[in-house]
């Protein structure tokens, strides 16, 4: 039997949706996050699971929010880029990237939230990823501006920041 209501947390807050009234049963998670909750850091592009721009965290793991139904998030924790501030080690590493030879970690910034969340998912599982592991983890994301060198370096720096905090 179809559920009448679903409930999931988004960035720590409970969200309840009545199916058929608040959202349709086939509504994509990305649509609900953007249009119902105004979380525009969730970007919509290919809608085919190819670009990674719509990435969010589901129970801490990265998912493509345009490729899943909102009802499938029932009872789970959704985290979007809006949950993070500039003190976050991953976000701050992206923001600060200006190391000679690496450029910056973004140009237009359209894809950036997806990369940040993917990096979070990676570093939560692997605190010291090798460069190849970082590349592999990020390979589901397209940055047409081509800022991959800056992005990879930012993830390396974020990992170092996290390890530094843990050492203390």
């Amino acid at each position, binding site marked *: 039997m179809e559920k009448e209501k679903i409930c999931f947390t988004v960035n720590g807050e409970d969200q309840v949706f009545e199916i058929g009234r608040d959202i349709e049963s086939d509504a994509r998670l990305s649509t609900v996050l*953007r*249009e119902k909750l*105004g*979380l*525009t*850091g*969730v*970007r*919509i*592009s*290919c*809608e*085919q*699971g*190819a*670009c990674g*721009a719509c990435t969010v965290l589901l129970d801490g793991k990265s998912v493509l929010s345009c490729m899943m139904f909102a009802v499938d998030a029932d009872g789970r924790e959704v985290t*979007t*880029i*809006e949950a*993070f*501030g*500039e003190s976050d080690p991953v*976000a701050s590493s*992206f*923001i*600060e*990237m*200006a190391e*000679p*030879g*690496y*450029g*910056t*970690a*973004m*140009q*237009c*910034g*359209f*894809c*950036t*939230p997806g990369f*940040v969340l993917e990096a979070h998912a990676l570093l939560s599982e692997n605190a010291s990823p090798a460069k190849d592991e*970082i*590349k*592999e983890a*990020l*390979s*589901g*994301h*397209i*940055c*047409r*501006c*081509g*800022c*991959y*060198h800056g*992005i990879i370096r930012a993830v390396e720096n974020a990992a170092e920041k996290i390890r530094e905090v843990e050492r203390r």
Partner: protein
Amino acid sequence: MTKTVYEPRVKRNYVGAYRPKIDAREKTLGKVRFFQDVTLGGMFPNTIYGGILQSPYANATIVGMDTSDAEALPGVRAVLRYDDPEIRALKLTTHAWTDTAVTPFHRDTIPRFFDRVFLPGSAKHVGDQMGVAVAADSPDIVHEALKLVKIEWDVHPVFLEAEDAVSAKADDLHPGLCEEKNKIKLHGDFQDDVSFETGDIEKAKSEADVTAHTDMVYGGNVSHGTLDFRGLLIKWDSGRIDCWTNHYYTDQTRMYLHEYLDVPINRIRVVNGHCGAHMGKWNMGEDGYYIIMAFLAKRSGRPVYYRMDVHEEFHDTRNLTRFVIDLYAKNDGAITGMEIEGIGTMGGYYGPMEYNVQFIVEESAERIFAPIKNLRVRSKAYFTNRVPGGVMRGIGNLQLCWPLLQAVDIIAEKLGIDPIDVIKKNFGDMWSPYPNESLAAVLDKGAELIGWDRRRKTGEGELIDGRSKRGFGVAVWNQWHAEWQENARGRIEVAFRVNPDLSVTLISPTCETGAGGNSACVFACADNLSFLNITPEDIHWVPVNDSDLGLKDCPPTDSIVSFLMPEAMPECAAKVKDEFKRRGALMLDAEPDELDVDDAKVFVKSDPSRFVTCWSVMMDVDCVPIYAHVVRSNNKTVTGLPCGAWFAEVEVDIETGEIEVKHVVLVNDVGQVMHASGAESQQLGAQELGVGEALTEDLQYDRRTGAILNRNYLDYKMLTAADFPEISPCLMEVWKGAGKYGAAGLAEAALTGTPTAIGNAVHNAIGVRFDSLPITPKKVLDALEKKERQSGKEER
């Protein structure tokens, strides 16, 4: 990877620094608003959605249409047909209307060609937006309504190649617009397609010691690949039009709406803000949908939101250009003559193909191979049923660099001379002393960074793991868009608003597409207002362009905003200083000429102990901000152009045919680095296209129907982090332009030589040249097999 920290010619506090982008925080945290966010938050109640039929046929005409079922579908608010009298009364339009072509028709920066009909009844390529448009309450209803439209088609044979365009079987795609069927009339009056000739090419040919011949194509198979799909939200009621868009040119979009909808300019408002990387996409010609959506908005009385889908975004490409080049050289490596035949294969509509096959060659004869004095250029271009080509990052220059610098490589190999020496001997611009200092500097630096001394003769490179051959290649080209080349762009407007607390609002209107002009503008503003102790953090750059607010925007092509707007800032800062002196004079009981401003104080020059703080000047009187506005014409002094050099190191697996790019070095002389981190990002990021187009990006046609089979991001292979090679960016300041900063553009040029350097490196590795891109493993294996067969025949 080799890290090179460039040495600035002039040390400045902020301009030229390695610093984060000014909006890195907002971009990282997802706070930047893109066009797709415009309908959220209830700002536009009653918004409906628009869509246009995409032709399923490459060459077909509608002979009958029944829209009654679509019109009856609940939720449909307006249906616009190709035979609507108001639509049919519209005049023709062109591919580049809303892009950098400035409105006065005698000052195009890109050639225009009026071949496009709004909502036509005939399709000229698969995906052509034509026939019928619908506005409805949801995107799903729009799609359903378009499916309910019954159409009777007259379908014609498809032709995709230039050589087929003039055959008896081919339809005339644009009757009356061509000099002969499907062959456009190029600018100028010339015979036998010879568009340009200098010197005595026959003499150079007859006296040549060595020749090189290349016949190569580039383009027609790549996509801009933007993630932020194009669109607009438009309202048209009470005689007023409001348009929100991610088009990167605010004022020109307003002019476009004015031109075709006959609404006074002051009753049209266009607003844009951040735009995802577009790579030239706004120039492609589909902007007819602005007019179509405007009519849907007018008829429905509702705001209409239209955003392309992923398939629509794949219906344009880089101009498909074939160049046949013959070089004539002497034994010392001096190239004495060159014949170039440029053959453009356009799609169903004109892109600026004249630029590709005609103007770029003439321009390049001045800009990059000026020492080659004997030239003959033939140019021609044909319509076909391909998707239209047009402007894409690196327009024209990539296509010409590819066959030319490979021809140079052939000359060098035949003569046993280092290709770098052949390039130095034959390249440079017509305005600078010869040999060209900038060219030599970027080549020498690049050779050092790549380890050019490891290069061996063709085919004699190191064999790695018993199966891969190593090779090295080089290419050069000029940088573009020095200030003197931007006169057609018109005057540049900039304004500073110094607030009572001495914070600054910077109005340098441009759409931030990632090119980073906004960061350079903020750094230049801070440097020029240093007398107020201003830092970049004190400056707010206005990120939204609103045509109602006054200043004309400057389109962010080729990162030129990074220096064209800063060049106006010294004068703007001087106006701010003058106003502080004028206001300070009233407080100090002195004449303004007796005063100066520094360290955020207005003081008497002859007695600096008499001063008032700038804060006091603002706060103790009336708190009226100081507003300084400058309209500046470019400095037209012709200063020549700087150069860039590209080096590639590859390993070619001779068992699998796979090419691994081990290292790309690119050295760009930009005159003045405006933002080092941003400039490096341009250099690095350009390789997304440069390496991608060389190895993986390839639109595949169904040759029978003319449909593109991989028009999506799953099947069209763009590089990801896992594919990106090692890249060493290097910035130089050797050449200098005329202005205070004297910079040149970087974003377009940063990928120009990459595919060519890779092509030359692959040849150096395995002794095979490829006449088209991408160089796939299959092409490599086929070529190696062919080479082996030929060498077997020769041995027998």
